[in-house]
């Protein structure tokens, strides 16, 4: 028997898969299995981190064939950061899910344990897909991974089982499928032009009509999946109507898959051109403004948070497009920082919003201040996450915005700074709607019942939101990690 020594990257993808299988087979033990699998995955990711720290970029030729015949897994700093982020959020959301699905039956009379039984397999399959996306160096494999993510994400989005959730989930399904099919056709065009499917083949290619078409298809497909304005129409309802842990995963991770693939495509291929970047910046601006405006008039807390996702995604696109003098080789860092910041903060925020909704019994913003019960810690978590999303120092969101504005300023793009500022002001405005509801007390009739002790469910949002704020101080190490293996071929 040869010694058994799988590489950590494969493990990072397959461990959650095994977890999903086990959780599916043994629904009763699903939470335990799920947390165990996430923990094991985190360990594998730590091992990947070790390898990346040693070697910069690590590749595994699956099946021993190597590109272009076989599929390769590749990890560098950017992938590592995303892997770590995923592990962190999965862990936190998993803990949050323990009690989120353990509570009483929801309004429509569905038995909750069923949700819990299905949450874990879907969540773990989602993690499989996410990790697969981060580590993949093959275009078609990315398509398959996107489909894994899509199906798992739709499953999570409709976990609540309400009509609204199902409708939103179906719209999400269609958008997601269409996006994936566009990517597929794009892959076809790439193959047509280069005869290869790996990133390396793309890297050597010259610009050509077929590649332009491929990029156009993949860009639109991924933008649809990442909910870039005006292709965001599916997102708010889908994220707002899902159960809180699912929303956290969808908002923090799933939309990032599209962004990540775009970054990778841009890194490998002879695109995008200057005009496309400007277009992305403009669309990002539209997202920042429209998302902000819609968040301002959202009536429910989770819907507000979902619209804020639209705005933040727009900001990330602005960063991607315009945060540097050297194009993407300069601006990807700002985009990556914003991706990380948004993921951590938004996961915390959705979990907090879920807690608030659970404790108060509803999440209508206008009536938050009528409740005699105030989930103080969840509200604190919400506020902390808002700080990061607004971009106040010293949060990670601030560091991301700083990088964005610094890059834009360096390139003399003051109007993009103005966009960022406008987005910031809008976010202050819409988040303060919620905060005002938390902090107002004079509309409460009943005696105030403020402190109901600590619940385990409070820990994940508080920790995540705290990290979203505190990680700003660790921006140096984070940037160092991102630069491992020199993504985009530039030294910091």
């Amino acid at each position, binding site marked *: 028997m040869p010694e058994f020594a799988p590489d950590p990257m494969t493990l990072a993808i397959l461990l959650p898969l095994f977890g999903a299988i086990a959780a599916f087979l043994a629904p009763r033990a699903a939470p335990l299995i799920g947390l165990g699998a996430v923990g094991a995955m985190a360990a594998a990711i730590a091992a990947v981190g070790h390898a990346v720290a040693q070697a910069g970029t690590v590749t595994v030729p699956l099946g021993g064939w190597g590109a272009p015949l076989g599929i390769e897994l590749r990890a560098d700093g950017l992938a590592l950061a995303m892997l770590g982020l995923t592990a962190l959020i999965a862990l936190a959301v998993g803990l949050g899910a323990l009690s989120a699905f353990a509570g009483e039956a929801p309004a429509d009379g569905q038995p909750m344990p069923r949700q819990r039984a299905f949450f874990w397999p879907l969540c773990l399959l989602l993690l499989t897909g996410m990790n697969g996306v981060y580590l993949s160096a093959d275009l078609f494999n990315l398509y398959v991974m996107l489909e894994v993510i899509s199906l798992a994400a739709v499953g999570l989005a409709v976990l609540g089982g309400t009509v609204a959730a199902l409708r939103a989930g179906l719209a999400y399904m269609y958008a997601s499928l269409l996006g994936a099919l*566009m990517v597929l056709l794009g892959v076809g065009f790439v193959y047509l032009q280069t005869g290869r499917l790996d990133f390396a083949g793309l890297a050597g290619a010259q610009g050509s009509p077929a590649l332009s078409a491929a990029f*156009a298809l993949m*860009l*639109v497909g991924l933008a649809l999946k990442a909910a870039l304005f005006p292709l*965001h129409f599916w997102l708010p309802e889908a994220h707002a109507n899902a159960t809180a842990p699912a929303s956290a995963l969808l908002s923090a991770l799933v939309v990032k898959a599209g962004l990540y693939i775009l970054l990778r495509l841009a890194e490998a291929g002879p695109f995008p*051109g200057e005009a*496309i970047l400007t277009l992305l910046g403009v669309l990002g601006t539209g997202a920042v403004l429209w998302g902000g405006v819609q968040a301002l008039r959202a009536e429910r807390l989770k819907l507000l948070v979902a619209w804020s996702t639209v705005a933040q995604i727009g900001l990330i696109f602005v960063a991607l497009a315009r945060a540097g003098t050297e194009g993407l080789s300069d601006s990807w860092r700002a985009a990556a920082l914003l991706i990380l910041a948004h993921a951590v903060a938004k996961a915390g925020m959705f979990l907090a919003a879920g807690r608030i909704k659970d404790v108060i019994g509803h999440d209508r913003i206008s009536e938050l201040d009528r409740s005699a019960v105030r989930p103080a810690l969840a509200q604190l978590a919400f506020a902390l996450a808002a700080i990061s999303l607004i971009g106040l120092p010293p949060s990670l969101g601030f560091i991301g915005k700083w990088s964005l504005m610094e890059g834009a300023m360096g390139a003399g793009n003051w109007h993009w700074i103005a966009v960022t500022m406008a987005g910031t002001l809008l976010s202050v405005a819409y988040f303060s709607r919620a905060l005002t509801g938390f902090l107002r007390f004079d509309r409460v009739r009943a005696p105030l019942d403020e402190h109901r002790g600590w619940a385990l469910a409070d820990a994940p949002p508080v920790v995540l939101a705290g990290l979203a704020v505190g990680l700003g101080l660790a921006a140096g190490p984070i940037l160092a990690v991102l630069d491992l293996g020199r993504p985009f071929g530039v030294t910091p």
Partner: protein
Amino acid sequence: MPGLALLAAIGTPLGLALLLALPAARGLVWRALPFAPLPALALALFGTVPFTVSNDWLILGSVLGLDATARLFLIPAALVWTAAAAAARVWMAGDRRATGFGLCFLFAMTGNLGLFLADDAPTFYVFFALMSFSSYGLVLHARSEEALGAARLYITFVLAGELALFAGLGLAVGETGSLMLADIADTALSVPTVALLLAGFGVKLGVMPLHFWLPPAHGAAPVPASAVLSGAMIKAGLFGIVATVPLGEAAYADLGVVVTAVGMVTIFAALLMGARETAPKTVLGFSSVSQMGIVALGIGAALMAPGAWGAVLPVLVFLAAHHALAKAGLFLGTGVFAVQHRPAARIAVTVALVLPALILAGMPLLSGALGKEALKTALGAGPAVWLPWMTLALMLSGVATTLLMARFLVQLWRKRPAAPAGVESDALVIPFVLLALAAAALPAIWPTVAGSAAQPIAEAAPGTPWPLVAGALIATAAAVASHTSRVGWSAVLSTLTAPAERAAARVGDALARRRRALARKARALPPALDGWIAAHRLGQTGIAALLVTVLVIGGAQHVAPTDPIAPPAAEQNGP
């Protein structure tokens, strides 16, 4: 024909007064009233001076005439009377006691104008008494409680004054041995005589402590009467002193000290008392008292240092003219103000009133300031010991007058003087404006009128604005202080900042309204847009649109002629 001219000058008012007794002629008389002083004015302006006409038959052998000094008194007096008469015609139009008023008015006019023309003591005394006693009717006219009290006070003082005057004149005539005023003034009279004369004229002049009648009387009398009381009649007191006391002839050091001191006290005491008054016309009365204090300074100096009289006299005459015009203007202006009913008109009148008030207060280059400067120069020849004090007092009198004028203007608004109903304001405005303009133009026309006597005025320094500014500041401060003491600090400051805040609030309101309107629109826009997008499912369309856009942008790269990489599609498509 000096005789005829004299007759006309004195006879016109007298005759009109007599005609008033005929009910049928009353209309005519009232219409002719403004023209009554004109013969006297014409005489003063065009007559050659000096001239005398003796009428032995009259009284104790009356001698009438006009000398240079009297002429300069007569001109402003006649002007004031004309203006006042014009005003009286309107003012009294609806008054049921108009006839009585007219009678008294015409008699007082006769007396006032006549006394300037009198050359001998008895005649002078007669005209003087005529004026004084008929004025009682003017003061009493309203018959109100206030008028009755003022009239009582007036008549008491008039009686006392007449008594003193009578005694003084009598003694003087005795000491001189001549009835002629000119002779009396040339004789070194005894101190008691001079003292009596000074006291008697002093009552008319209103210097302290003989002033008590003056402010109430001015306050109580109808506006035209107040104007002549202040503008013309109190000048008779000055004229009396000039005409009878042997100034420049002999030194009366003790009397001089007294008069100077009285003058100084008068200047400021009048301020203190006037500041407490509430009726605007009474305030003006105190201002007159204060102004006469200045005159007293000049007289006092001349009493102490006879040598100074030559320099002082023309200045005093000028000051008298200045005060006559300005003060009468102010009184008439008060009347004009009283009959205005619209705030805008009142503001306009107030602004117009500021001109005579400024003249009086000593606005540089205008008659008040010039007069004071000239007096300062003239006093240089006076007693050296007193000079600095007098200079100071003159300067401070500017402050005092400013304060009183400020008080007057404020009280005008606070306590609007009563006016008969239905008075036409236009007819009142003309005399007022004329007097105010005359007062303003006085420095310019004085040389023409007075000839060499105008020398000191023409040479006077333009004056300094500081007393005026100081007065204005103190007045403001006092107003603020009094207002504050009434309503408290915070209220004052709120009031001060209120206009700015109101303006800001208005701008803020307008902005807020616009903002609200915009916000309404802005709030309505997203749902509308949202609904539209949802209704047409434009999000879906966006997918295709974006795809086409990106494809076109990408394609543009390849069809661009500069791009050598992409060969045309057709060539590649060969069999």
